[in-house]
C-alpha cells in the first residue's frame, strides 16, 4: 500500500481521534514517569518521550489477568472460563525495539505446540503503531546488536518515521492498512522515501553501544558450570525490576484466590530474580541461589530462546541497564561471557 505523509503536529490529534473509536494505549506522562496507558477522553498523549518507563508488553500480557472463575454451589463447583474477548484497540507510539518484542513474544505464545488464547486474543485485536527512533533515545540503547533496527518495522503494523517536517507513514501489515483513513490523503513521494532511507542508515550508525549477543550462544552451550557464574549475582538485590521492565520477559505464576464461595484463577508476572521462582511444593528449589537465577536469566535470553525459536530474547531497549538499582549491566555480562 502507498505510504502517507502527515504533519508532525497532527500526531496527537490522530491518537485522540482513534481514542474516540477504539481503546487506544499511548504514552502518558504520569507524575515523573512515562507509561503506556489507555488514553482517557480528556487525556493527552505524550509523544515527546524518549521511551516509556515500563515495556508495553502489559497490553497483551497483563501483570495480572483472570484465567477462569469458579463458584461453589449446592450442586458442586461451577466453572466459567474467562472469555478471550478483547476490544478492538490500538497501541500508539511504541518504539521499534518494543514492537520487535511482540514478534518475539508471538514465537512463544502463538506457536504450533501451544496457543495462548489470552495473549492471542489481545494481540489479534490490537494494531501496533510504532514511532521510529531517528536519534537513539538513550546512550544505553543497543538494538542493533540483537537484530533490531532503530527504524525497523518488525512487530509493528504501522511505522511512523520523522523525516523533518512530516512523519512518513508506512502501512506494514493488512491490519495497519485498515487504519489508513486516520492518516489523511497526503501520499508520500519518492523524495520522502529517499529521506527515510538516509535517516534509517544514520540512525543505525548513531547507536554506539554494542554487545556480542550472537557470539555468546556457542559459549553458553558449553559453560553451564563455568565459575564465571559466581561473579554476577553478588550484589543482586533479587528484586524484579529488570524482568518486570523487560519487554520480552514472560514468566508467569498461577494462583487461585477464593473468598466465600467465589474464586478466581489468576496469572501474574513472575520473575526469575525472585527467591520463590521455581520453588516446588515440596519446598525444594532446583535453583538454590541467586547465582542459578542469574544464569537462568542470561541463558534464557541468549541460549534457550535461540535453541527453541532461533531468536535472541532481548531487544536492546536498555531498560534493565538503566533501572537496575545496583547497576548490574547485561551488556557487561554478555561482554564478559564472550571472553570466556
Amino acid at each position, binding site marked *: 500500500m502507498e505510504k502517507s505523509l502527515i504533519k508532525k503536529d497532527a500526531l496527537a490529534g490522530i491518537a485522540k481521534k482513534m481514542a474516540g473509536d477504539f481503546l487506544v494505549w499511548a504514552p502518558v506522562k504520569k*507524575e*515523573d514517569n*512515562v507509561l503506556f496507558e489507555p488514553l482517557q477522553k480528556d487525556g493527552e498523549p505524550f509523544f515527546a*518521550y524518549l521511551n516509556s518507563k515500563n515495556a508495553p508488553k502489559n497490553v497483551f500480557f497483563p501483570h495480572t489477568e483472570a484465567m477462569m472463575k469458579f463458584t461453589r454451589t449446592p450442586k458442586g463447583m461451577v466453572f466459567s472460563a474467562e472469555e478471550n474477548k478483547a476490544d478492538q484497540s490500538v497501541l500508539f507510539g511504541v518504539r521499534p525495539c518494543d514492537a520487535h518484542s511482540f514478534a518475539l513474544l508471538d514465537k512463544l505464545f502463538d506457536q504450533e505446540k501451544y496457543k495462548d488464547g489470552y495473549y492471542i486474543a489481545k494481540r489479534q485485536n490490537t494494531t501496533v503503531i510504532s514511532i521510529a527512533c531517528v536519534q537513539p533515545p538513550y546512550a544505553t540503547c543497543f538494538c542493533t546488536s540483537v537484530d533490531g533496527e532503530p527504524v525497523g518495522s518488525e512487530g509493528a503494523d504501522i511505522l511512523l518515521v520523522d523525516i523533518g517536517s512530516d512523519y512518513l507513514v508506512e502501512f506494514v501489515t493488512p491490519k495497519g492498512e485498515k487504519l489508513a483513513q486516520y492518516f489523511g490523503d497526503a501520499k508520500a513521494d519518492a523524495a520522502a522515501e529517499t529521506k527515510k532511507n538516509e535517516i534509517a542508515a544514520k540512525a543505525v550508525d548513531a547507536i554506539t553501544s554494542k554487545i556480542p549477543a550472537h557470539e555468546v550462544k556457542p559459549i553458553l552451550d558449553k559453560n553451564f558450570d563455568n565459575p564465571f557464574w559466581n561473579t554476577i549475582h553478588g550484589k543482586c538485590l533479587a*528484586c524484579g525490576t529488570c524482568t518486570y*521492565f523487560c519487554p520480552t520477559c514472560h514468566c508467569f505464576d498461577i494462583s487461585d484466590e477464593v473468598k466465600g464461595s467465589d474464586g478466581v484463577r489468576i496469572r*501474574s508476572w513472575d520473575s526469575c530474580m525472585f527467591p520463590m521462582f521455581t520453588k516446588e511444593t515440596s519446598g525444594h528449589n532446583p535453583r538454590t541461589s541467586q547465582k542459578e537465577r542469574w544464569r537462568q536469566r542470561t541463558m534464557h535470553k541468549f541460549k534457550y530462546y535461540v535453541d527453541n525459536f532461533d531468536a535472541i530474547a532481548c531487544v536492546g531497549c536498555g531498560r534493565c541497564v538503566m533501572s537496575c538499582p545496583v547497576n548490574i549491566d547485561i551488556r557487561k555480562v554478555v561482554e564478559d561471557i564472550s571472553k570466556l
Partner: protein
Amino acid sequence: MENIETKLREEAKRLLLEKKADVIIGYEKGTLPLTATPCFITTPEEADKLVWNNLCTQNLAKFVHDLITAHKNSQKRVKPEDRKKKVVGIVARGCTTRSLIIHLQERQYERDEVCIIGVPCDGYVDGKGLKVKIGGADIVEGTIDGGQIKMKTSDGDKTVALKDVLAECCLTCRFNNPIVSDVLIGSPSPAMNPDAEYNAVKEFEAKSMEERWAYFTKEMEKCMRCNACRQTCPSCYCPTCFVEQSQPQWVGIGEDKSDTQVFQLMRMYHMVGRCVDCGSCVSVCPMGVDLRKFLKKIDKDGWEMFGNRAGSSMEDMPPLGRYDEHHDKEEFIFNP
C-alpha cells in the same frame, strides 16, 4: 573526597593483608554515568576500585547480613571445632552503622564478625530526582566538582547544584557520621538540617483523613510489586517474608490494589523502631513511590512515643522489645 578515597583504599588493603577482614563491601564506579555500585573486595589489589562520593547510594548493611547468613548456613554441616568465622568489612556512613547496630541488637551476628570502616557523609544524589531536574533527558557523561554536577545529556550540556538533588533523607539527616566504627576515615562531616526532619510528616498529619487516604492509594497504585524496597532494606531480612507465605496466604500475588496496599502497609509497619531513614527503598524504587512520607511517620512515632531513634546507639534497645510503665502513654487503650 579524593583524600578520603585514598585513605579508604589504604585501610581496605591493610585490613585484607592483616586478615582483619575476609571481604570488604564498598562502592565502585558504575557502568553508567554518575553511578556507583556495591562491590565486594577480597584481595588487596582490588581495593583500588573503591570509591567514596555523593553517588554511593545503597545502604550496604544489607549485604553484611546476607554474607554472614550465607556463610553460617554453609558451616552448618561442618564439625563445630572446624567451623570458621568470616569477618565482613564494610564501608559505612552514619545510616549504615545504624542498620548494623539494629542487626547487632537483634542478634543477627556478633560484633567481631563485622569490621566497620566508618566514613563521613554529606549526602547522596537522588538519581530519579536528578533525571526530573534535567527534564527526563538521558545522561551521557557526568562529573561532580565543587558542589556542581556537570552533565552531557541527550538534551545538551546541563549543570545542576549538588545540594538541589540530594536525597530527601540526606537533607535532614541527624546521623551523617558513623556511630560505631573500627576504623574511622576523614574528619566528621558538618551536620545537615535535622530540625526539619519531621516537617513533611507534620504537614501530612494536618491533612484530612480522606486526603491522606487518597495520597496513600495514589502512591500505592504506582507500586508494581517488584520487591526492590524490601530486598534492599537492611531491616527486611526475614527468611520468608509474609508476602511469600502460602498457608495461609496473607497477600495475593497479583496487582490487586488491596494486595499492594497491604504489602506496603505491613512492610512499613514492620519498620517500627527499625527504619533508619537511609532512603535505600526510595532510591531503588523504579516507579518513584513516596515511601518516605510513611516511613518517616514510623520514625517520628518511635521518637515521640518511646524516645527511640532506631539504631542510634548500642545501648538504646529496640522500642518494641521493652516497655516503660512510667512514661508510655495509655491514650490508645479502649476504655469504655
